[in-house]
């Protein structure tokens, strides 16, 4: 079997599981399956992250066009503009990223297909591993499926930046969500340019020591 055929089979199998196999087997879905596939996933209030993400809800996901309008704002095209009429390509992302409209997209995330995380029927939503829809502003629940230790640390306040009050009785706290810091398409943390070093006496002495050390060699 060629690797390509194997991949197609795996994706087929995955889709089959996700949709409860209804379109292939013609079986009538049970009530629970129907609700889980149609009703978008919302985190139960009790297990929701300690504080809500500061990203405004209801922002429509879009791709950048590289153009700016006369206010100087970047012009984006909503995903649904194209994806309502286009047939989803389930292999996208496995070998290459789409050529049209997704230029500049760097993809390096464990060799998944686009539709591992994007919902094939509703591009305004994300897709959990079990096929349920997930709003973009709850993306951290999608990440949590694979990144357990990071989610555990996040929920306990020891992963991800935050601002505000340590004493929650005195004031609010805002926290970053996963995608505030990590590019979901290439999540490895990028290199940074450090800000200025100290220029005090101790730092100068160290620089002099290092210079002497280099001269001796």
């Amino acid at each position: 079997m060629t690797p390509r055929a194997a991949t197609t089979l795996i994706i087929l199998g995955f889709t089959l599981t996700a949709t409860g196999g209804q379109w292939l087997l013609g079986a009538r879905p049970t009530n629970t399956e129907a609700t889980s596939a149609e009703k978008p996933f919302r985190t139960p209030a009790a297990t929701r992250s300690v504080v809500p993400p500061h990203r405004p809800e209801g922002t429509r996901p879009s791709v950048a066009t590289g153009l700016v309008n006369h206010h100087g704002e970047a012009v984006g095209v909503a995903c649904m503009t194209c994806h309502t009429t286009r047939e989803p390509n389930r292999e996208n992302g496995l070998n290459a990223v789409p050529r049209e409209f997704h230029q500049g997209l760097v993809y390096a995330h464990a060799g998944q297909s686009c539709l591992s995380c994007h919902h094939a029927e509703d591009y305004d939503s994300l897709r959990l591993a079990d096929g349920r829809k997930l709003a973009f502003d709850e993306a951290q629940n999608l990440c949590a499926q694979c990144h357990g230790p990071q989610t555990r640390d996040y929920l306990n306040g020891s992963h991800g930046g935050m601002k505000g009050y340590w004493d929650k009785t005195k004031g609010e706290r805002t926290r970053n969500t996963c995608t505030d810091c990590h590019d979901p398409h290439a999540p490895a943390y990028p290199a940074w340019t450090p800000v200025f070093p100290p220029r005090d006496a101790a730092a100068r002495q160290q620089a002099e020591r290092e210079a002497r050390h280099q001269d001796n060699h």
Partner: protein
Amino acid sequence: MIETSEQTNAPEAGGMDRRTALKVLGATLGAAAFSQAIAPLTEWAENMSLDEYLQKHYRELSPVDLAMVMARMEKQTKEQTGVDVHIQDYRPQPGVKFGYALNLSVCVGCRRCAKACHIENNHDRPSGNSYIRVLEMEKGSLDLAKGRVNYDHPVPHPDKFYMPVQCQQCDKPPCVSVCPVEATWKESDGIVVVDYNWCIGCRYCEAACPYHARRFNWTKPQVPAAEINPDQGYLSNRLRPQGVMEKCTFCLHRSRQGKLPACLEACPTGARVFGNLLDPESEIRWVLKNKRVFVLKEDVGTQPSFFYFFDE
């Protein structure tokens, strides 16, 4: 015999005998020494008010006296820089002891914490001063002496790890016990503070600190008026005079109001965890319970309130 002694004692014509010469010399030296001794007083008259000179130790000031002191400082800052600052006395909250933990697995060494400290605490601009020193360390070693502070390349370097070091707010602080004038002490929430107006600048505490966490103001700190942070605490980020020690206070002007320290808010990776060690539900307690934490130089017995950990 007699004749000889008379000759020796006889004053020379037009000169001065040895006794007078010594008297004059002694008086001159005495006058010079006296003028040197009172020099601080004459200098003080130029840039120090009588109130400032006679100000008591922070812990001996009544609330009314302290309010007057802080009002005087606000007025002085206004005169010198033209900036309206607000100096307050933030006291420890009952039932709170601060703890800080830092995740060395995710710190990338970008120094943004040090910069945030620099701005928040009104540090001297020319020296790039900060209470945080980020050490670039060799993997596999915790030898602080080999840590480099002046690295200048994109971070993180694959062969290094990064360790920000600031005041560890020790429970047994050697800096406090060496102070000859009790200008530095530990408060009930664990913060070691300095009364800048009581400090004599002997730098014993700087020498005693095993973490190199104290800083000395060799010059009057220069901060452009537009960049002065006007929210100031008497024991923390108010503008320091020349010749006194200063140190990290976990931003007590923020943390004693319930806010997170500036360095934590600036951290882009979330490597820093801050909270109340006495609250079993706090995030810092979760870290202490669930992560493998360690303290720096545990063997010197300082018992820090600052913890480091690696993820795995």
